[in-house]
C-alpha cells in the first residue's frame, strides 16, 4: 500500500504542532526536536482504538492546547513557595515553576562528592552526546507523550551520581504550576547513577485547583551495575489538570531499584513506565497507591521488559476509588528468550468506595523463556462489611473504621518506601486525602 494516508488532525494536534514549531530551539537539540515534531505530526494523539491507550483516549481528552507557559515571574515564584509538598523530608530541592528552572528555589550548593546537578541547557553545551540519551526510549516505539515532550524539549535537569558515590540526602525535583489561566508545561529530568553508587530521588507535581492546565513530564533513569536507586513520585496536580508523564528506566547488572508513586491529583492523568532490565540479576520494586474521587481518571501503565537473565520484579499497585472515579492499571511483563530465571510478580488491587467508581485492570504476561516464574493478579472489591462491623463493635465510628481499612489497604504499597521520613510524609499526604473524604 503506497498511497499516502493524510491524517485528519484535531484542533489540539494542530495547536501543538504550531506552538512547538514556533518554539525557538537551541542548536544542539534542534534536529532532535524537529524529528519528534514530525513524528507527532504524522501519528498524532492516541485514541481508544490504540490498544495501549484504550482506557485513556488522549484525542478525546485533550480538546485544545493551552498556550505554552511563559516561565516563572516574581508572582509565580511567590505562589510556588506556598504550594509545595514533601518539604519536610530533608531533601535537596530542585524546583521548576511553570516549566522553568528557578535557581532561588533550588539548592545546587555544597553538592556531595560525586553528585553533579546541571540544567539541561548547560549540560548540552558541555556534552553534545547527551542528545542521544534524550532521544532514547524503551521499547523503541512511538509514544505521543514522549514525542511531544521531546518536541518541546527546552528546560530540564541532569542529575549524575559518579561511580561509587553514596548520596544520602534525597534529591527532590519539584514541578510546580501556578496562576489562574491554563498553560501547557513540559519538563524533562535525566538521572544517571554510576556503578556501585546509591541515591534517592523524589519527584513531585503540584498546581492550582480549578485551572485546566496540562503538564507533560518525562523522567529518564539509568542505574549502572551494582548501583541502587530509590524513586518516590507524588502526583498531586490541581483538580482540573491533565497530567501526562513517563518514567523510563534501565537498570544494570546486580542493580537494585525501588520506586513508589502516589497519585491523588488531576482531572485525568496517565503515567507510563517503560522499564528495561538491561543487566543480569537486577532487582526492582515498582509500587504505587492511587487515591481518586469525584470524576478523576488516573491511568498507570507499566511495560516491564526482562531482557537479561536472573531479574526479579515486584509490582504492587493499590487503587482506591471514591464517587465516580476511574482507575486504570495496565501491567505488561515481557520475558525475552535470554531472560531465564526471571522472577516476576505483579499485583493490582482496587478498592471501590463509590457505587459508580470503575477500575480497569489489564495485567499481561509475554513470556519467551522457559525457566521463569511469573505471576500476576488483579482484584477489585468494596470494603468488607464484616471487617467494618468488627471495628465498629469495638467503638470505632464508621468513618474512622473505614479510614483504618482504607489506610491498611494502600499502606501495603506505601510500606515499600525505604526512607522512613519520605514514607511518613507520603503517608501523611495520603492521610490528608482520607481526612477530606465526605
Amino acid at each position: 500500500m503506497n498511497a499516502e494516508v493524510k491524517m485528519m488532525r484535531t484542533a489540539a494536534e494542530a495547536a501543538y504542532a504550531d506552538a512547538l514549531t514556533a518554539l525557538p530551539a537551541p542548536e544542539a537539540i534542534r534536529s532532535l526536536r524537529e524529528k519528534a515534531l514530525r513524528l507527532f505530526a504524522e501519528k498524532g494523539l492516541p485514541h481508544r482504538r490504540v490498544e495501549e491507550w484504550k482506557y485513556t483516549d488522549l484525542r478525546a481528552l485533550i480538546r485544545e492546547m493551552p498556550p505554552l507557559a511563559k516561565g516563572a515571574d516574581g508572582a509565580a515564584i511567590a505562589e510556588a513557595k506556598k504550594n509545595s509538598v514533601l518539604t519536610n523530608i530533608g531533601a535537596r530541592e530542585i524546583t521548576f515553576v511553570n516549566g522553568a528552572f528557578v535557581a532561588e528555589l533550588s539548592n545546587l550548593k555544597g553538592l556531595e562528592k560525586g553528585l553533579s546537578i546541571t540544567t539541561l541547557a548547560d549540560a548540552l553545551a558541555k556534552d553534545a552526546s547527551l542528545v542521544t540519551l534524550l532521544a532514547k526510549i524503551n521499547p523503541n516505539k512511538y509514544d505521543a507523550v514522549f514525542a511531544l515532550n521531546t518536541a518541546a524539549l527546552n528546560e530540564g535537569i541532569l542529575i549524575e551520581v559518579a561511580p561509587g558515590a553514596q548520596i544520602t540526602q534525597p534529591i527532590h525535583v519539584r514541578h510546580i504550576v501556578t496562576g489562574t489561566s491554563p498553560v501547557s508545561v513540559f519538563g524533562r529530568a535525566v538521572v544517571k547513577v554510576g556503578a556501585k553508587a546509591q541515591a534517592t530521588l523524589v519527584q513531585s507535581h503540584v498546581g492550582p485547583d480549578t485551572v485546566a492546565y496540562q503538564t507533560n513530564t518525562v523522567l529518564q533513569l539509568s542505574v549502572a551495575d551494582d548501583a541502587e536507586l530509590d524513586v518516590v513520585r507524588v502526583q498531586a496536580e490541581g483538580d482540573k489538570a491533565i497530567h501526562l508523564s513517563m518514567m523510563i528506566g534501565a537498570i544494570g547488572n546486580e542493580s537494585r531499584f525501588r520506586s513508589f508513586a502516589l497519585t491523588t491529583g488531576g482531572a485525568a492523568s496517565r503515567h507510563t513506565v517503560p522499564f528495561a532490565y538491561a543487566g543480569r540479576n537486577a532487582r526492582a520494586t515498582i509500587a504505587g497507591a492511587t487515591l481518586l474521587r469525584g470524576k478523576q481518571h488516573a491511568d498507570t501503565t507499566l511495560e516491564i521488559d526482562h531482557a537479561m537473565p536472573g531479574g526479579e520484579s515486584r509490582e504492587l499497585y493499590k487503587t482506591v476509588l471514591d464517587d465516580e472515579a476511574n482507575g486504570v492499571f495496565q501491567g505488561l511483563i515481557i520475558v525475552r528468550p535470554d531472560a531465564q530465571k526471571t522472577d516476576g510478580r505483579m499485583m493490582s488491587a482496587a478498592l471501590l468506595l463509590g457505587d459508580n467508581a470503575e477500575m480497569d485492570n489489564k495485567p499481561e504476561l509475554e513470556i519467551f523463556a522457559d525457566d521463569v516464574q511469573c505471576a500476576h493478579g488483579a482484584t477489585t472489591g468494596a470494603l468488607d462489611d464484616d471487617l467494618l462491623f468488627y471495628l465498629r463493635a469495638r467503638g470505632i465510628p464508621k468513618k474512622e473504621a473505614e479510614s483504618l481499612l482504607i489506610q491498611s489497604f494502600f499502606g501495603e504499597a506505601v510500606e515499600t518506601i525505604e526512607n522512613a521520613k519520605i514514607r511518613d510524609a507520603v503517608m501523611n499526604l495520603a492521610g490528608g486525602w482520607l481526612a477530606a473524604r465526605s
Partner: protein
Amino acid sequence: MALLEVKNLQARVEEKDILRGLNLTVNPGEVHAIMGPNGSGKSTLSYVLAGKSDYEVTGGSATLEGEDLLELEPDERAARGLFLAFQYPIEIPGVASMTFLRTAVNAVRKKRGDEELSTPDFLRLVREKAKELNIDQNMLKRPVNVGFSGGEKKRNEILQMAMLEPKMCVLDETDSGLDIDALKIVADGVNRLRAKNRGFLVITHYQRLLDHIVPDVVHVMAKGKIVRTGGPELAHELEAKGYAAYDNAA
C-alpha cells in the same frame, strides 16, 4: 435498674425469623449463660445486641441501663458499654493490633467524656492488661488477629474487653475451637473481669466452659426463645441429657 433488659425480641435474617419473642434480664454483677442446640438463635442474639446490619429487628426491645440499644449504631453501643466477644474474631490484615486497640480505646473514651490516653499511658495500660491475661506482647506487634491461633484470637478478644471496660459483656461461643488449656486461660481472664457493676452473658453449646466461668443463672434457648431458666445445676442436667427434649419445645 436492670443492666440488660430484653423484651419480646424478634429478629430475622434474609427473610427468615430467628428470634421469636426472647425475654432476658441481666442485673449488674450477674453472670448469665445461654445454652441451646445449634440453630436455636444464640449467635443471632449476640449480633442483634451488638448491631450487625444483616439482622432485621421486627419487634420487641433491648435496653442497656434503660437506654434503647436497638436505635444505636454499633460503635455507640460499644461506647455505652456493650461488648461482644466474637465467636470467630476477624483477621484485619494491614491494621496493626496496637493501632486498632488505641483507636478503639480512645474512641470509646472520647464518647464517654473521658480524656484520650497519651501514647505512654496507653502502652502502660496494654502492658498491664496483657500481663494479667497472660498475653505475649509480641502477639500485639502483628496485624489484628492475623496469623493468630484459635486460642490467641480468643485471648485477644478478652484483652480488648479488658481495655474497653464494658458494662455488659456478651461472649459468643468463646469456647469453640479451644483446647482445655486455652479454655482455662480465657475463663481466668473473664473471671478477673467479673465485678459488681458488670454483667456477663455467656453463650455456649457445651457445659464445660461453665465449669470455669460459673454462672448465676442458666437459660435454655430453643427456636428463638428462652424456654427454661435455672441455676448452674441446669447446665449439668443439659450435659447429661442433651438438647433432645428442647428440639420440639416452644
